[in-house]
């Protein structure tokens, strides 16, 4: 057992999910180089945020639910969605988890509680609260996690929803993944709290709810914090604002260019726009995946060989996902008007 009181299997499970997410995201990024044209439009990667994603989801029951942002690949992976179907969706194939209708920004797996993903910053926050209202009515103790970025916390939807969720004591936990950047803008440039060096969790003060900041690079710390918030919500005491500090290792998203020019991933904004190489290199050194691996190997939870085996299995799984995606057919054009009305 670790300090967290988590059994070894659980720790290994968490590590495995982090490795799988990293491998998946690397393969998505690789697709731009290796198979240009296969991924169209916008995609946003969560490499660097694995500890926050997995630590949070590890606190959930199977019948809990969540909504996230367009940076959504990691969550369904950890929930157990079929990575072949996820990759196929990103490749726009008819075998995709949304049959090619949604793409990278709108992954959904309702059976696993992964509700519809909105691409508009902040707008999934009220969606989560609405689902939490449903959970409150049903009275089975379900909780909903609402994931969003620091950029969303300036949106009116954030303010309105947190107020109502607090007033109605909805069983929702608001997890703000603060990666210091809103697309290309640094958080101090747009946030009055960050501009004076305050953690964004202080925003909770306006809603009479607890606000707490946690190191989003430490999956066990995230797990502990989110678990406490989930228990609070489950017991009917209402929401919490959890600010999880992460660093995304890729740029905001692939670059948008005119047709004909292949989409690709630029350098992280820290370097490309702000010239802050030290910041980026420090983040690489603090990469949560090798960090957690080292921790588990050091404390004997995993041997180095076992850790390698997990990485190898992830590589094999994602190879399969990529191949499956590439081999899958695109949807027939006339399918376009299939889901207009329920």
């Amino acid at each position: 057992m670790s300090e967290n009181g988590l059994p070894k299997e659980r720790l290994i499970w968490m590590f495995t999910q982090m490795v799988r997410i990293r491998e998946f995201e690397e393969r998505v990024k690789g697709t731009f180089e290796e198979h240009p044209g296969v991924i169209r439009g916008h995609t946003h990667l969560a490499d660097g945020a694995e500890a926050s994603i997995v630590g949070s989801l590890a606190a959930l029951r199977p019948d809990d639910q969540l909504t996230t942002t367009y940076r959504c690949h990691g969550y369904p992976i950890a929930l157990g969605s079929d990575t072949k179907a996820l990759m196929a969706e990103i490749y726009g194939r008819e075998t995709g988890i949304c049959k090619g209708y949604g793409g990278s920004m709108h992954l959904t797996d309702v059976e696993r509680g992964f509700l519809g993903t909105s691409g508009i910053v902040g707008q999934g926050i009220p969606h989560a609260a609405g689902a939490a209202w449903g959970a409150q009515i049903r009275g089975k103790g379900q909780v909903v996690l609402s994931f969003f970025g620091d950029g969303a916390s300036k949106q009116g939807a954030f303010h309105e929803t947190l107020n109502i969720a607090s007033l109605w004591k909805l069983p929702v936990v608001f997890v703000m993944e603060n990666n210091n950047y809103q697309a290309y803008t640094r958080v101090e440039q747009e946030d009055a709290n960050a501009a004076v060096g305050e953690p964004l969790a202080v925003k909770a003060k306006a809603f009479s709810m607890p606000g707490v900041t946690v190191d989003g690079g430490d999956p066990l710390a995230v797990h502990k914090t989110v678990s406490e918030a989930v228990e609070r919500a489950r017991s009917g005491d209402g929401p919490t604002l959890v600010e999880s500090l992460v660093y995304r290792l890729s740029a905001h998203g692939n670059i948008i260019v005119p047709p004909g020019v292949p989409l690709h991933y630029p350098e992280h904004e820290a370097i490309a726009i702000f010239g802050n190489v030290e910041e980026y290199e420090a983040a690489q050194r603090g990469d949560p995946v090798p960090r957690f691996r080292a921790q588990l190997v050091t404390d004997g939870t995993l041997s180095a060989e076992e850790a390698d085996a997990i990485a190898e299995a992830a590589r094999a799984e994602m190879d399969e996902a990529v191949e499956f995606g590439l081999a899958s057919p695109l949807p027939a054009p006339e399918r376009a008007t299939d889901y207009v009305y329920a």
Partner: protein
Amino acid sequence: MARELPYIAAIGEAVHQEMERDDTVLYFGQNLGLTDDDPYVKAFGNDRVRVTPISETAEIGMAVGAAFAGYRPVVQLYMSEFMLVAMDQVVNEAPRFHAMTAGQVKVPLVLQAGYGFTAGWAGQHTGTIYGMFMGIPGLKVVVPSTAADAKGLMTAAIRDDNPVILFHNYLLTLEHGDVPEGEHVVPIGEAAVRREGSDVTIVGIGWTVGKALAATEQLEGDGVSAEVIDARSLAPLDTATILQSVEKTGRLVVVDQATRHASAAAIIAAEVASEGFASLKAPIELVTALDATVPYSEPMEQYLLPDETKIVAAVQRVLEAAPVAA
């Protein structure tokens, strides 16, 4: 059994009856369900009936989320302009998810939105803005003109698995009509022929249906037989019924309280011009509000609006262009 109810009560009756029938129906919004004596709260409790702060983005966004989770929310917005505060949730969230998820989720919500209150409510509270919600795939728009239809369309809207905006005209609030007591459903997507005629088709929407019917009385005296169609549903639009009528009459006048390029009339006219051109004997006439922000002061306010005089004049113009054969 039917009895007289005012239009606004008919809508309420639909909500109440559907909430009785289906306990996944929720009802919420500003300034409602305030005390335990409130009829909705008494009947359905504080779980399903809640008052919200002035937070349209959250209200409509939460309706979307509750719908994801299997509920059927009805959001009382009072004025359609307040949807503009939360335009993203209405246009770019609620109607998108069923398609983007290839059918994994449905968003069966209803937005109850009053409009057209040209009674001194001034520029920001008086608009007729349904036009901007037509043509959004997945989003349905209905506009009842009678108390019975108000109940029937609200019932249909709640039962529909898609997001529906029910625009109720504030000028019709106290208009009484015969409303069936029990279950009453008016299908979405079906226009209604309110009056049969042979010389000209007049299509009205919401409040303008009554104006059109009033105009036909004068026209009758002039020996003109007018057919009046109540569009009822703007999305999906029942162009078939309109085309069928124009095939019979050959002449079309569309009356809309919205301004010209924001009107449903413009879309109806485009449909008939392209699909029913062969039937037309005269150019189509649009009688819409004049292009201006609705002014506060009464004479100006009324000047902007369609009325019987303008409708009659439009009918006379189409008859002049294509007189009825003796």
